[in-house]
């Protein structure tokens, strides 16, 4: 929108003020900060795995198989003498990659569909709602199993399955938001000004549902992380010898009585990683979306 006169400049830019307010609110939540820090540690670990991990993921030491923890191997070794700590560090890659990419894929599917359904309503809404119902009728594990069978098991296909599986829920959220936003006065004003649908959607509707989407994303990431572990555990995701927490747990299953620690450490990694994103998500929800404060 352009006006003949430049708008009166306010002493403080309202966006900067809002950002500062949100930051202050966030910093008052210690658990959310812990979540942010731990999640960042996991992301950095995954990115820098080649430099941080004491050993390469596949390096086996056949003189020290199923070894207890020692100075040489902090968390011990597995049945092939591979360093467990190194494998957990390398395994963070698959988890973070699946968690983030699956969520992005789900968003890419869900936001356009949800917004179109909620904004235009009518028959489009009905068609998209039915499509969502159809997608929902297939549990994500069934979708993943099917995809793995059609395309072959891999991290990419597991990520696609997780993304498609998470989409229906997000479509509903995006639709609900668009439905509420289209009734807002500023949207009506834009319509009255003759703004095109594309402009209204991109300038008014989408930016206003951004905070809800951020919160949804931070909740979707931990469930995708757990989902990746489940799929890799079942042999439908990351393929050995590539390390992944789910693969490590699957391998550990044969040594539950001999070396239970092999099953304990990767599980703790999954738990901490998804807990950190959940804490972060809860914090963001409180900060960005105070209406739904639990």
């Amino acid at each position: 929108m352009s006006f003949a006169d430049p708008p009166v400049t306010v002493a403080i830019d309202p966006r900067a003020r809002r950002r500062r307010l949100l930051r202050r609110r966030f910093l008052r939540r210690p658990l959310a900060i812990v979540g942010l820090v731990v999640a960042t540690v996991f992301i950095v670990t995954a990115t820098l795995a080649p430099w941080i991990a004491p050993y390469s993921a596949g390096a086996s030491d056949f003189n020290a198989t199923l070894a207890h923890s020692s100075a040489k191997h902090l968390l011990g070794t597995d049945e092939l003498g591979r360093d467990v700590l190194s494998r957990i560090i390398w395994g963070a890659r698959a988890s973070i990659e699946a968690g983030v990419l699956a969520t992005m894929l789900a968003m890419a599917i869900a936001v356009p569909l949800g917004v179109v359904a909620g904004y235009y309503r009518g028959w489009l809404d009905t068609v998209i709602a039915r499509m969502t119902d159809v997608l929902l009728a297939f549990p994500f594990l069934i979708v993943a199993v099917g995809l793995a069978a059609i395309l072959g098991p891999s991290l990419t296909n597991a990520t696609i399955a997780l993304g498609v599986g998470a989409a229906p829920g997000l479509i509903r959220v995006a639709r609900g938001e668009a439905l509420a936003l289209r009734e807002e006065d500023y949207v009506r004003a834009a319509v009255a000004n003759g703004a095109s649908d594309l402009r209204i959607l991109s300038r008014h509707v989408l930016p206003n549902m951004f905070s809800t989407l951020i919160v949804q994303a931070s909740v979707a990431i931990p469930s995708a992380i757990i989902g990746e572990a489940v799929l890799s555990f079942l042999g439908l995701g990351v393929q050995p010898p590539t390390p992944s927490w789910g693969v490590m747990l699957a391998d550990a299953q044969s040594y539950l009585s001999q070396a239970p620690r092999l099953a304990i450490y990767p599980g703790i990694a999954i738990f901490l990683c998804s807990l950190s994103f959940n804490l972060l998500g809860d914090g963001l929800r409180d900060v960005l979306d105070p209406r739904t404060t639990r």
Partner: protein
Amino acid sequence: MGGFLLRKAGAALIVVVCSSMIVFAGVRALPGDPAIALSGENNDPAVIAAVRQKYGLDKPLPEQYVKWIWHAVQGDLGVDSRDLSVAHTIVTRIPITLELAGLSVLLGILIGITSGVIAAVRRGKPSDHAATTFALVGLSLPHFWLGLMMIILFAVDLGWLPSSGYVSFGSSPVQNLEHMVMPVVVLGTGLSAVLMRQMRSSMLSSLGADYVRTARAKGLSEVSVIGKHALRNSLITVTTVIGLQLGALISGAVITEQIFVIPGFGRLTLEAIQQRDYTLLQGVVLVTATGYVVVNLLVDVAYSLLNPRIRVTGSAP
């Protein structure tokens, strides 16, 4: 009410039909020729052609689809690669999973709703923090890992419970329950975390509502205010959540049955994939999708019976 039900049932039917098309197309998209898979070791072209004809694989796809659906409606899902009736296999496996899922839902409701109500009523108190923390941990915990940990503790170390397998209730009720304890805890606690959060937030909004204030003003006892007014209205929302959690429950059953080696419907799904058994896979996925839609239709009906406002506006949120 009749119109509402009819509309809901119609929508459900459309979803089931679309799902069946996806299942059919998906199974056809699998790599490999089903006729070769079905003829097993025999590579003789004549045998393969005979198999193709026997299973109707030489017909055009739409005709195959219509034929499949026509038989499926009559309860005939064809025969698998071992020449066993798919419908029969599914019928024998389903009760095992229904027992697992039913007990898990019971446990989930018991823990989830109780702790959700307590957390909401005692908002901000230690018991609220304990319940909220429990739910957060429950949401972050990979439940199949919890299963492995329980096997290590209760089966390997303490020897209290069997680590895997299944005994039917008919042959030994005690052993049946012993085998079910760990799987039910694994599957049920996951559900309880979701239900607890939902219950807490809807109880909190109920407790702040006018009718609760009125009930208190009338001098009703706190038990009756919470039990009769707030709880009843919160349960309505939670009903829908239980229906939507069914998908997670089915996925959960697949992995739980895998860990505890329970020969249920979930393991059957994985077996169908591993053995590339097309007819079986088709049947299993169709039953899953139909089951999901039917349960959610029932939830919608229950929801509309509990909440008359829905019937008037005609659409559930």
